[in-house]
């Protein structure tokens, strides 16, 4: 595996992106940064700006209005960038599948690497999902 990717996996900076969620998944993601489920021991830091981000944590079912902003943000993230979809709304719009405001699910808009199901997923599930992401990237390249 290339040296660049090895360094990326040992210090992934996460950026939290909510495309119209009910904020439950956002609270669970924020829980991961608290002392009980500390993720700084894996080198993860919360990035303030999209240009410092390595991993995008996307929550929420994509509204029509937030789809354009999310596409612009995804283009601004410097490559290599990984995308993690958290919660049922980000996987397949969940219960908003027939809603007038959510036409397409997330993975038809931007390529997603790991899906973490749950409504909301527990912090243990989020950490397990990120570990699976690291193992997937390691085994693929």
């Amino acid at each position, binding site marked *: 595996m290339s040296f660049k990717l090895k360094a990326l996996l040992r210090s992934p900076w996460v950026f939290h992106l909510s495309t119209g969620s009910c904020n439950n998944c956002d609270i669970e993601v924020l829980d991961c940064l608290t002392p009980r489920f500390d993720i700084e021991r894996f080198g993860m830091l919360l990035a303030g700006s999209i240009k410092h981000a390595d991993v995008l944590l996307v929550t929420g079912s994509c*509204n*029509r*209005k937030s789809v354009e902003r999310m596409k612009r943000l995804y283009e601004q993230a410097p490559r290599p960038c990984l995308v993690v979809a958290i919660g049922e709304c980000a996987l*397949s719009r969940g219960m908003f*599948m*027939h809603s*007038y*405001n959510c*036409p*397409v*699910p997330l993975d*038809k808009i931007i390529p997603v690497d790991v899906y973490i199901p749950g409504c909301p997923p527990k912090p243990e599930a989020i950490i397990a999902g990120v570990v699976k992401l690291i193992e997937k990237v390691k085994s693929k390249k």
Partner: protein
Amino acid sequence: MTREEVLKNLKNRFKDDIIEVFDKSSNRVYIDIKPGSLVSVATYVFNDLEARFNIATGVDVRYHMEILYHFTFEDLNLLISFRVKLPKDKLEIESLTSVFEGADWIEREMHELLGIDFKGHPDLRRLLLSEEWPEGVYPLRCDYKEWDEKAIRDRGV
């Protein structure tokens, strides 16, 4: 003023505007009024009785449309909802922005989602729907049909 005094005042003053009073519980009252007398009732409740305008709700009940205006009396722990029934072929009512400013955005939202026309509203443009949404299609109506061909409505499994 106690709760009974408030209700008696309203019944006496708007004798011919009130259609029905539904006294549901000690802190919840529904009063049906005629659409034409909305502004006078709202002015009286807001200025003289000093209630707080909470929110307005628009409902599409298959054969007509209703708008409920919720006013709260905080000291009495009372919420009064004024219900207005609009026929489907003439969906217009006077705007309450001349009485208080809090009705501005909720009337914009009701206009773009249900198609109710508010006469006298200063600025009736789009609030929540995106720019690509076509004009004249109101999503919260009973007879709304999907207009977007590119929408994916199954889970793909």
